């Protein structure tokens, strides 16, 4: 009687997709190793039985080498072997490397069933595997599947009950590889193919010169596409909707309201030249929805579309190789580029994914750098939206300042913190082109996640700020911080309110700077400060969970110091 099913396999073999096919639970999978750091549970309903399915972190072998592998092994040993079934997901295009884990599972006596995934890709690459021969040699059920399209999954489910322990003598590592060599010779037939465009691009992207040219091209094109899609959504969909539908509606609704009343102040905010201004009015029905849906959401959609595409194609590990060098100076290795890129979407998943880095020291450096120097999409959208009005030079300048801050801070942290930066060892996946339905699903879940997280906080934030403003409760604080804000950063003292709101949400904070009528220089300083000072509260909580209180305090002190230095430098030296 099977009570639990475990999914185990090397990193990046499509295990998460098999999991979501079996259970219907959605998992974000990506074409780079290490997407599943924690294990995920779901249920498979087969007949009238409901069996728990656990997706284990990707592992190359059963001998624990990393924390993810330790988790996998300890979970496998939780139950007695006759109560579980282990589905070993194998990348058919790379049977040899995958067989090590398969043999270990069989030798350990786990009731194993081999799922030869990505069989369509194997055929494309000229890899032919004799499934029945392999089944005969391994003495376990072997099923060929293509999880992305769903082919073979039904057969896999039907045959799970056939999984049982077989006796196979345990081999030492070297002997096992020799055995694998013999198995491969019998079951795999490689069709000789000339290098095709895909292989040429795969090779070119890991060579120094062609790789660098490709990287510059990919980043440039990605950036252009993100802007193009974001701007198109704004100019064709959201702006017409807000200005042609929402505005007349609100004006009609509030025509007889008292302009200075409390309710009017809360819902609509201040009229600018007698009219509602979505960017400046700061009401619950005006600026709050406009910031989220009219300024930020379009870029969230376009950013995640492009990032998801790059992830699924498998380009990001190649970028990691090229940047390994640079990142070593910051005490990190190339793979840290993945948390950083995720951080550009939202700092929360960025910091969570620092778990792919091995040491605590690396995770501290990466998390601190992300929360200080990596602006999230909402913040970027607002910076570009507001500062862009003064010319591209200013918006670009903020990025330049942040980039320099990251470099300088990273070098200092690397020198100051005891320890060393570990070496980088990753597998570079082949390019794979994700089916559009998978891409759309991933985008949908990411955008939905953003809306669920952002909208309530934005509404509550704007509400609270409006109440405080109405009763002039900020005056005490503004008075208190005026010397720093005005004296050091050259900002009007009201800007402190925006900086405080930045702790709640960055996009609302930049929105609050709009009505202050700041000069380009002031807006530049304020926007930069918003990026490098405290991250938003959601990020703060994740930092606390991931780093612990002590390191959170350390990280916070670094944030405050950097903010003061950079703010003052910009004010007195650079933008004089």
């Amino acid at each position, binding site marked *: 009687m099977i009570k639990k099913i475990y999914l185990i396999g090397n990193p990046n073999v499509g295990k998460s997709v098999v999991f979501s096919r079996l259970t219907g639970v959605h998992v974000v999978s990506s074409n780079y190793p290490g997407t599943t750091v924690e294990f995920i549970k779901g249920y498979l309903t087969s007949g009238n039985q409901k069996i728990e399915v656990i997706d284990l972190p990707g592992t*190359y072998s059963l001998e624990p080498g*990393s924390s993810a592998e330790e988790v996998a092994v300890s979970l496998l040993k939780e139950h007695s072997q006759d109560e579980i079934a282990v589905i070993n997901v194998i990348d058919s295009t790379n*049977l040899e*490397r995958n067989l090590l884990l398969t043999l270990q599972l069989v030798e350990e006596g786990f009731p194993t069933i081999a799922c030869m995934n990505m069989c369509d890709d194997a055929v494309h690459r000229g890899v032919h595997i004799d499934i029945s021969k392999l089944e005969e040699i391994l003495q376990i059920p072997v099923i060929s599947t293509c999880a992305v399209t769903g082919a073979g999954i039904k057969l896999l489910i039907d045959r799970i009950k056939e999984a049982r322990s077989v006796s196979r003598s345990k081999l030492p590592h070297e002997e096992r590889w020799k055995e694998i060599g013999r198995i491969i010779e019998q079951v795999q037939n490689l069709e000789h193919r000339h290098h095709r465009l895909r292989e040429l691009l795969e090779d070119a992207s890991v*060579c120094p010169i062609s790789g660098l040219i490709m990287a510059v091209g990919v980043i440039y094109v990605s950036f252009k596409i993100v802007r193009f899609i974001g701007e198109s959504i704004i100019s064709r969909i959201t702006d017409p909707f807000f200005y042609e539908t929402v505005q007349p509606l609100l004006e009609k609704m509030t025509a007889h309201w008292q302009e200075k009343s409390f309710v009017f102040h809360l819902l609509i905010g201040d009229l600018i030249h007698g009219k509602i201004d979505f960017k400046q009015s700061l009401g619950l029905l005006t600026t709050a929805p406009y910031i989220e849906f009219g300024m930020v959401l379009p870029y969230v959609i376009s950013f995640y579309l492009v990032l998801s595409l790059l992830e699924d194609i498998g380009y990001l590990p190649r970028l*990691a190789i090229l940047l*390994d060098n640079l990142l070593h100076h910051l005490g990190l290795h190339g793979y840290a580029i993945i948390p950083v890129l995720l951080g550009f979407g939202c700092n929360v998943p960025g910091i969570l994914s620092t778990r792919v880095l091995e040491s605590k020291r690396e995770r501290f450096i990466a998390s601190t750098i992300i929360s200080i120097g990596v602006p999230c999409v909402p913040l970027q959208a607002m910076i570009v939206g507001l500062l862009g009005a003064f010319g591209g030079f200013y918006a670009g300048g903020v990025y330049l300042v942040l980039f320099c801050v990251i470099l300088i801070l990273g070098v200092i942290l690397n020198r100051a913190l005891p320890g060393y930066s570990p070496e980088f060892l990753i597998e*570079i996946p082949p390019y794979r082109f994700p089916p559009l339905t998978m891409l759309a699903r991933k985008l949908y879940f990411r955008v939905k996640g953003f809306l669920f997280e952002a909208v309530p906080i934005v509404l509550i934030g704007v509400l609270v700020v409006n109440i405080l403003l109405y009763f002039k409760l900020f005056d005490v604080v503004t008075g208190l911080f005026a010397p720093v804000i005005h004296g050091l950063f050259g900002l009007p003292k009201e800007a402190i309110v925006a900086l405080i709101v930045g702790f709640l949400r960055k996009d609302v904070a930049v929105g609050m700077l709009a009505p202050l009528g700041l000069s380009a220089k002031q807006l530049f300083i304020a926007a930069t400060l918003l990026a490098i000072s405290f991250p938003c509260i959601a990020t703060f909580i994740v930092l606390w969970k991931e780093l612990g209180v002590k390191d959170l305090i350390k990280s916070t002190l670094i944030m405050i110091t950097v903010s003061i230095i950079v703010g003052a430098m910009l004010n007195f030296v650079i933008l004089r």
Partner: protein
Amino acid sequence: MKKVSLVHLKPNHKGRVSEISGGLGLRHRLMSMGLYVGKEVTKLSYIGLRGPVVIRVGRSVLALGHGMAMKIIIEAE
């Protein structure tokens, strides 16, 4: 036949791993990814300036940090 580290093996050249002069931990990690003494590897590229080395082992492509690549000695063909 000469022995060189992975860093010094010329790109697009093949060789066999003759020695991994790292600790047991490193040998195990590499072994589980299919890189062990006696295995044939092809070097694809070296990023330069103490950057990583990219190699093909069997049907996988691996990227190894500079320090790690220095510890892997190859008998070049």
